[in-house]
């Protein structure tokens, strides 16, 4: 699981879609926050469905941005 997720808190509008599909990774406060880890595919899926495109997925091994 080399992928890590961070939240662009200025972009996040707390839609909650990430928390809905991956509650072990994301939680909604005033904006979304990362609270855990999970499979790469789940991180990517959450990033792709985010209507605000506020989840940034990075490959922690290469440091490269995976999404968006």
């Amino acid at each position, binding site marked *: 699981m080399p992928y890590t997720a961070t939240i662009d808190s200025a*972009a996040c509008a*707390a839609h909650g879609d990430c928390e809905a599909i991956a509650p072990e990774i994301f939680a909604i406060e005033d904006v979304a926050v990362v609270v855990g880890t999970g499979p790469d595919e789940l991180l990517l899926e959450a990033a792709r469905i985010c209507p605000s495109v506020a989840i940034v997925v990075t490959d922690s091994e290469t440091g490269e941005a995976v999404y*968006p």
Partner: protein
Amino acid sequence: MRGGIVIAGGGLAAQRAAETLRRGGYDGRLRMICAEHHRPYDRPPLSKEVLAGVEHGAFRPAAWYEEHGVELELGVAAAGLDCRQRAVSLADGRELRYDRLLIATGSRPRRLALLDGFANVHTLRTLDDARALRTAIVDGGRLVIVGAGFVGQEVAAAAARAGVQATIVEAAAAPLQALLGIEVGSWFAKLHRSHGVEVILGTEIAAARGTHHVEALMLRDGRRLACDHIVVGIGVDPDLAWLAGSGLDPTGVAVDADGRTAAPDVFAAGDAAATYDPVLRRHVPGGHWESAVRQGVAAARAMLGREPQRSAPASFWSDLYDTRVQYLGNARLADETAIDGDPAARDFAITFTRDGAPVAVLLVGRPHELPNARALLAA
């Protein structure tokens, strides 16, 4: 007992404000006045999943309100405000004293007077509206949608998906023409036609034929449209008639960036709030989902005495036939547009510029480009 915080309204801005208040440590009395009988719920699914027969449920279970000490008053609307007495009167005659008040009563759909009183005329704002419209779609008759805004378009898409014969009637020469211009708007007309939706442009409803049910609509251009159900989607107005006589503007309560109104300890958020538009140089009511969230959170943070959060400009999204449409900025200001991508493939971006500077971006089928669009507009 002190009045604590009263939230007038039970929509998105109201709910997010309540959550931010409790999360931020506010432990005083907290009451929410919800005109509907349902616990607060999310509205975007109403014109999407709910019309397809999939219900989403409320934001939070009943237990959440108990655990967080949030007193929900369901099925009773705010009916009046006395800023001097710090009291909100309710439709059932009660009066609630407040220390601080959040006005978050949202908006209500505009109606067409000539369609008032007919049983088969719908609007789409509430869960009850969506359920009734879902029943109409399942019923399978001919559906006429008045207005080609986003709600009307999403209804058309849901109807087409359900195999219902749908017709959109729009007064302008293209859907969303006032916002996006005729060229971009025409793309939306084409999209719906390719899914079997009839799109009639440049004319209006002149009259309705029928007694209790509208059997046919007469258009100004002389056409007669037989119909079984009608949806009116011609925009919304702030739901603020209850503010009459309060000193606050019932057409949209002017707020600052923290949601403060001109009245002491009275805040407003969501569709009820009118925020300052630096381009138009006046307060403008209404907004979208993201602005409602941010304003609800911002007002709550201001009540808690916390710093405002930094946030990007709100963007708007819609889903039409599995294609995501996103929009941010203000395309009304534009004098030119540039397109990147392939409209026929539902994969393109349109940049709206004014004097060469970007003022808005429309993304179709390109959700991942939203951060770039934000950066472009911020530059």
